């Protein structure tokens, strides 16, 4: 008779194993999934506390107390793995960016996972590793988390919700309602890369030049911009709905109009070609690592120089002006010299028939 080995648990089969209902049931399997997968990759002193919540030091900014900024973002992307990233790093970048565009220094993340029964553990491990890498690179640890499992057919593989906390120094005010006529609009780089990368993968289209998602954490770039003390009014990351949705939001919140210059808009030739092909407008396509900046016109040059010196802002450029307009229209002077509205999108962008 073999001796029962005390405390031995067969490790998770990360090669061929799959998520099953026991991984969410609160029993041993769940603890195993957490320790062998989540804690292994994401581990840090706070997550290691192993309590229901993480106890964190009171946030300070350069040693001084500041205000807390909190944001949350749910990620349901399909496909889960796409050129340039995956749902894991995306779920870190998305929330870090939401905190950072408020002018805050992102400090901590929380992550909630909804897993579908049958989801391959190997893919889960890839996703968690990618999350861990992204969190490390951004310098923002995941300090607490949660896992739930839903029955097969009731989820789409994996959904990840992250929440982030950051600290905002007293005196710094950025927001969508602060744009004023005379301000200028800058972007940190090319538009539409993320959405087109996803779409081309979804539609199984391949192009000669690969299109990669721009997913990235912008806190480093933003920190460099804030350090200049330039007259920033508002920062936003133009995700869903693209640049057009972001500018329409700001125009409405601030009660101003905007004038974009089509010729100044940075769109990579391959993205522009894919958009032509798919019947899409890059202005409405999502970005995950780009920054829209509204700032005092006098500081535009200074900010552009700082942005261009940062790897994520190399192609930063001026794209338009904030103007007075009671109707809060975002307009564009086309490359053709005509004018048109850059309106909100109605629902999803649907390809035209002919």
């Amino acid at each position, binding site marked *: 008779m073999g001796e029962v080995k005390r405390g031995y648990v067969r490790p998770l089969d990360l090669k061929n194993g799959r998520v099953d209902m026991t991984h969410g049931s609160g029993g041993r399997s769940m603890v195993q999934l957490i320790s062998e997968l989540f804690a292994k990759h994401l581990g840090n002193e706070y997550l290691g506390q192993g309590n229901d919540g993480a106890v964190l030091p009171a946030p300070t900014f350069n040693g001084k107390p500041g205000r807390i900024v909190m944001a949350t973002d749910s990620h349901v992307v399909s496909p889960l793995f796409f050129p340039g990233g995956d749902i894991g790093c995306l779920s870190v970048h998305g929330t870090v960016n939401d905190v950072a565009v408020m002018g805050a220094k992102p400090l901590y993340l929380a992550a909630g996972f909804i897993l579908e029964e049958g989801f391959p553990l190997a893919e889960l491990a890839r996703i968690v590793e990618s999350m861990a890498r992204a969190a490390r690179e951004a310098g923002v640890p995941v300090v607490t988390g949660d896992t739930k499992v839903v029955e097969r057919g009731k989820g789409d593989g994996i959904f990840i919700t992250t929440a982030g906390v950051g600290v905002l120094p007293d005196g710094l005010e950025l927001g969508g309602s602060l744009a004023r006529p005379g301000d200028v609009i800058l972007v940190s780089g090319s538009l539409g890369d993320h959405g087109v990368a996803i779409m081309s993968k979804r*539609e199984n289209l391949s192009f000669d030049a690969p299109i990669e998602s721009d997913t990235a954490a912008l806190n480093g770039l933003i920190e460099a911009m804030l350090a200049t003390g330039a007259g920033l009014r508002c920062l936003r990351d133009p995700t869903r709905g693209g640049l057009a949705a972001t500018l329409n939001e700001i125009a409405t919140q601030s009660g101003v109009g905007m004038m974009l210059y089509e*010729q100044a808009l940075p769109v990579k*030739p391959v993205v*522009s*070609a894919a958009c*032509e092909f*798919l*019947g899409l407008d890059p202005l409405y396509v999502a970005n995950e690592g780009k920054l829209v900046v509204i700032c005092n016109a006098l500081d535009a040059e200074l900010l552009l120089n700082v942005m261009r010196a940062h790897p994520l802002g190399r192609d930063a450029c001026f794209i338009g002006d904030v103007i007075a307009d009671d*109707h809060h*229209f975002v*307009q564009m002077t*086309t*490359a*053709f*010299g*005509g*004018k*048109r*509205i850059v*309106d909100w999108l*109605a*629902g999803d962008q*649907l*390809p*035209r*028939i*002919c």
Partner: protein
Amino acid sequence: MKYIDEFRDGELATNLGASIAATAQPGRNYSFMEFCGGHTHAISRYGLSDLLPPTVRMVHGPGCPVCVLPIGRVDLAIRLALERGVILCTYGDTLRVPASDGLSLMKAKARGGDIRMVYSTIDALQIARDNPGREVVFFAIGFETTTPPTAVAIQQADAEGLKNFSVLCCHVLTPSAISNILESPEVRQWGTVPLDGFIGPAHVSTVIGSRPYEFFAEEYRKPVVIAGFEPLDVMQAILMLVRQVNEGRAEVENEFSRAVTRDGNLKAQDRVAEVFELRREFEWRGLSVVPYSALRIRAKYAGFDAERRFKLDYRSVPDNKACECGAILRGVKRPQDCKIFGTVCTPENPIGSCMVSSEGACAAHYSYGRYKDVH
């Protein structure tokens, strides 16, 4: 982007605008109809009307396949998805066309209909192959450009013995729609819609050639210029039309000589003729019933005809009373003349089909040009 940027050159456009202004005779007004929604879209998206002199006016025509699709046809597709449990495949912007009972294909999908957007008929065929136990119906809409791919799909399904695939055919014909407009009392008798010429869609002519337009030019004395969809193509076509009007000519001219010939694509025409035949009549939104203006599937391919296969009964459904899509599609009214434009009817909540597709006159004006109405 190669082969694209050349046709979007702002400087050339300004020069063309100046040539049009210089060529247009003082004291004379010019009204041209761009038949196709693709041109409407290009005119709005690039702000082309800003580059034209005030005496040159563009009238939007009915050439948007989504816009002319009557409610009754969308109802058929919705019934197939919701009541007959088929997988219904269709092109993108058909999904939002308003139908009866406040439904659209998009809303029917939320109610459990298995409705899938496809980029081409090849995708629809693949869905049929992948789901041998389900009926797969391709909701085929569009003018001559989308008809040959549907014909090929039916022949392909026939060759493969793909028994679960069928087509709900709503393909319509450009020349019949143009004659219908030219025959309308607003144009012919009362002259309330002045039309001095047409811009014909180049992609349609890559298939049917330029020959079918020769009849209009001769019979109705209206010049036609077949033009591409890039903004410079449209500007060039307008200049060519102004010249024809000035010189009293009514000819078919081809601006899109880079791909359109007089006879078109004979192979594609053959395929279409093998699979389809003329319908005696077809209801168009806005133009009502137009004789010999659409195609149906020939008896030889009856097994692939969803109307026969599911014994579908077409019921005509009147449009919302306040909606002016009909008059707009015939060029009688402009989007901003409609009482519900931009108030009750918006792209988020379209009442009429012209507000659905970005090619529709209302959606194009709402999305790109409505700032002109308020300033």
